[in-house]
């Protein structure tokens, strides 16, 4: 008799356990999906620089380049300028940035000539035009204009960029900790975009910077 009756209405312990297991599994999957969505939302955020809007006009300044000639910011009117501050005795951050400038220039392709690349030394004591010339040549980045000036000149011009630097004694020498941002200046000598180091890889992302510049050209 009982065999004829369908057992579907009966709640056997086996069914209860199966139901519980399925419930827990569904909850787990829901949590996993939520977690993955959150993760993809995090990684979907792409850093494309800090846009200065309206563009900030820059006060002109004049320094000396690696061949000993006087160079002013206004000499670059009509061109875009990508600029960073550093010092020649810097073995890590500055060569990394210079290497990325090389890759940005390559990524710019036919537009490369519309952009000037600048390096301004924060080490007025050690960085002569000759030091900077050698430094840029050894790094294979002769296309970069390397500028140097007196401490007073440098201190005055960095204010408008919000750049900071401090000398840190190291043995009988010193190193310099400094703002590692790259600054994009438009053809009217106005500050347009700030590129911070990518916090993930602690360097600039050349493809991103080149893409951003091309959008603005």
């Amino acid at each position: 008799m009982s065999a004829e009756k369908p057992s579907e209405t009966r709640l056997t312990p086996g069914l209860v356990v199966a139901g519980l297991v399925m419930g827990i599994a569904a909850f787990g999957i829901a949590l996993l999906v939520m977690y993955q969505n959150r993760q993809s939302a995090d990684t979907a955020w792409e850093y494309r620089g800090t846009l200065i809007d309206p563009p900030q006009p820059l006060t002109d300044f004049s320094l000396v380049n690696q061949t000993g000639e006087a160079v002013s910011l206004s000499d670059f009117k009509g061109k875009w300028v990508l600029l960073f501050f550093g010092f020649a005795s810097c073995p890590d951050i500055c060569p990394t940035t210079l290497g990325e400038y090389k890759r940005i220039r390559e990524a710019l392709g036919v537009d490369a000539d519309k952009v000037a690349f600048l390096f301004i030394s924060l080490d007025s004591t050690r960085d002569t035009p000759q030091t900077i010339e050698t430094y840029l040549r050894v790094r294979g980045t002769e296309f970069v204009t390397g500028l140097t000036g007196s401490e007073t000149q440098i201190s005055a011009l960095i204010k408008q960029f919000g750049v900071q630097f401090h000398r840190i004694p190291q043995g009988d020498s010193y190193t310099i900790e400094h703002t590692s941002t790259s600054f994009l200046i438009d053809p009217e000598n106005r500050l347009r975009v700030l590129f911070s180091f990518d916090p993930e890889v602690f360097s600039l992302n050349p493809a991103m910077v080149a893409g951003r510049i091309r959008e603005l050209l």
Partner: protein
Amino acid sequence: MKFKRLIWVICLLLAACATPKSEISVQNAWARPAQAGSGGASVTAVYLTIENHGDAADQLLSARTDAAAGVELHETRASGDIAGMHGLHTLEVPARSRLILRPGGYHLMLEGVTRDLQEGQTFTLTLKFTSGQQLDVQVTIQENAP
């Protein structure tokens, strides 16, 4: 008698297992080009990967090479947009771990290179660890990370 010997063997085996041994290996050692002299071009950094296969932590104490007047253990640290280099006394490599020295992080700064280091060339760097282990590493000069 036999039993006693067996105990001895077991003890020895246990002792061998328990003794912390440091087994360090180094890979992918590279540095950017530099030029002999005194200016900024005579400064460069060595990047490499240290693997500790042993059961005990070890520390890199120092490094030296005849290719530079001095080698210093450094770390680049950033706080906000400001980055700088800081000297380190030692570099810890935990047991069964890998420590990667790369741009923007740990590096061995070469000061005053004694000869021009050009792309494709190599030089020998000797690393000294707390465990007493000493390792000769071939550093390749190249512009970018391998």
